[in-house]
């Protein structure tokens, strides 16, 4: 490798170590890494700007804006009370229904936002049922993190896959004549929840009706809620028909967000909606800038052809035995993303797998196995996913105590192991073995 390539790799590795160690704010560390790469000449500032996938950033910010309004409609609270009714007042079933709700919402909404939406209603429900809060909130966190990858909208990894591979919205449901992310993760999710119920939530305890739970189930302004839900659905449908519309996904999402803001602003006092300023302030700007920096950092590696070199190293493994290669990729990824921030890892390997294609290695089995293992594995510890960090903070604040690592692992390890094992079997059967020559 050229000296400049070594320099780029060194900056990248140091930046990732600083991000993982959490000694400095991860966004500041990542942006500093980009600045260092520019100053030492790995890339120009114009290159760095160009490496950022602004389409993905537009999807992210736009969906967060719409989700921000959704969180203020009162619908999460209403849905939680429906969850209580559906569970028949049985604590264990309620946790499962709340987990499903978190999973479904997180397919469209950012994982952190999903937890922030559901926690305020899940906490009084859990207290009323005398359930310990930590497992309930952690289950919501795991589920939100898990299902974010099922569709294109819920999390950054599927959006990065769209950016690198061109996967469309519908490809996440059905691709090349076989089920892909959504059905496979849905089956995995159902089996995992069943296993978790048997593991830690079975057993009859006292039952509770919705009236006893004292949870507000009313939607303050049905017109506002109706507008937001309609816009959310329209935006999702628009994104599903991206190829027909022939514009970028980010543009469709941005159009949805901007027109929603416009409609609500024009409606004025007629709807009880939060101001646009409030929604914008609540956006996770640290995460936005972190993702911008991440694209630029990985772009620096790409420019130095480091990812191409890595792909060359991996070619024999994947070309000679795709099943073994996919298995190794999957099971090496699970523990790694459990302890390091998973977005950087996934983005790096998405590019690496793309470079394998020229050597005759089919990329899709590896892309899917990477994205699934990268998401499911990130539930292992708090370090793997910001959503779990938020969930843990809520648990500690509400219970006025620190949650120990062993308590966290008692819930995260079984969840991750069952999910990863089930998804591995399905992924191999549906996506890897059919491609083995």
């Amino acid at each position, binding site marked *: 490798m050229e000296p400049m390539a070594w320099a780029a790799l060194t900056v990248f590795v140091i930046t990732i170590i600083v991000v993982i160690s959490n000694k400095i704010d991860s966004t500041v560390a990542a942006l500093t890494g980009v600045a260092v790469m520019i100053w030492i000449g790995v890339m120009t500032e114009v290159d760095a700007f160009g490496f950022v996938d602004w389409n993905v950033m537009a999807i992210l910010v736009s969906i967060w804006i719409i989700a921000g309004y959704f969180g203020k409609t009162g619908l999460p609270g209403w849905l939680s009370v429906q969850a209580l009714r559906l569970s028949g007042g049985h604590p264990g079933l309620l946790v499962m229904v709340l987990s499903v709700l978190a999973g479904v919402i997180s397919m469209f909404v950012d994982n952190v936002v999903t937890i922030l939406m559901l926690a305020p209603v899940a906490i009084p429900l859990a207290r009323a049922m005398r359930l310990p809060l930590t497992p309930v909130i952690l289950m919501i966190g795991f589920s939100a993190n898990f299902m974010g990858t099922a569709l294109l909208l819920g999390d950054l990894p599927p959006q990065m896959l769209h950016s690198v591979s061109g996967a469309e919205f519908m490809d996440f449901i059905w691709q090349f004549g076989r089920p892909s992310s959504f059905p496979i993760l849905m089956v995995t999710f159902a089996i995992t929840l069943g296993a978790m119920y048997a*593991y830690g939530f079975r*057993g009859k305890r006292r039952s509770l009706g919705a009236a006893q739970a004292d949870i507000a189930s009313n939607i303050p302004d049905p017109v506002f809620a109706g507008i937001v839900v309609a816009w959310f659905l329209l935006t999702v449908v628009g994104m599903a028909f991206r190829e027909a519309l022939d514009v970028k996904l980010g543009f469709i999402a941005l159009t949805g967000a901007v027109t929603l803001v416009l409609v609500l602003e024009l409606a004025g006092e007629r709807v009880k909606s939060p101001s646009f300023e409030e929604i914008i302030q609540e956006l996770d700007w640290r995460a936005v800038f972190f993702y911008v920096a991440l694209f630029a950092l990985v772009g620096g590696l790409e420019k130095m052809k480091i990812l191409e070199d890595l792909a060359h190293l991996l070619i024999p493994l994947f070309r000679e035995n795709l099943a073994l290669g996919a298995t190794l990729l999957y099971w090496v990824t699970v523990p790694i993303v459990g302890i390091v921030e998973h977005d950087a890892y996934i983005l790096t390997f998405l590019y690496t797998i793309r470079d394998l294609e020229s050597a005759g290695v089919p990329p899709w089995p590896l892309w899917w196995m990477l994205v699934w293992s990268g998401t499911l594995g990130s539930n292992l510890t708090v370090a793997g996913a910001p959503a779990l960090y938020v969930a843990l903070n809520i648990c500690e604040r509400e219970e006025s105590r620190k949650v120990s690592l062993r308590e966290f692992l008692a819930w995260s390890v079984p969840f991750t192991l069952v999910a990863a094992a089930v998804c591995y079997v399905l992924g191999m059967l549906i996506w890897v073995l059919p491609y083995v020559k």
Partner: protein
Amino acid sequence: MFKHILIPTDGSDLSRRAIAGGVALAKAIGARVTGLFAAPTATPIVYRHFLPVGYMTPQAHAKQIERTAEQYLSIIQRAAEKARVPCETVSVTNDFPADAILKIAKKRRCDLIYMASHGRRGVSAVLLGSETQKVLTHADVPVLVHR
């Protein structure tokens, strides 16, 4: 002089001796005592120190922890009754005993913490650290260490 002594217990022989010492001190100076047990969380996995050693449902685990807490705290209760020292006991869920001790000392306005010098020995003491040491470092009130 001290009016309210906090006596934490982990059920070990050493903490039983500390209980006897703490109650005797309370009797001598006319103080009351609060006995404390920091219970582990009722997870399906049962841990010994940091190692998983078994599985039970969280409900069964919670009941077992409750029984253990009652057993350990009753030792303090009985010692105090025998010495005619006013006593109350408290059990909290916390995997970090030092945190629980400091919090309860503050919440109950205890003016002395009377505790055993160590509960853990060997490798676990090195890995997990001494709770007494943590209490000594962070306590706002005097700490008397029983050896």
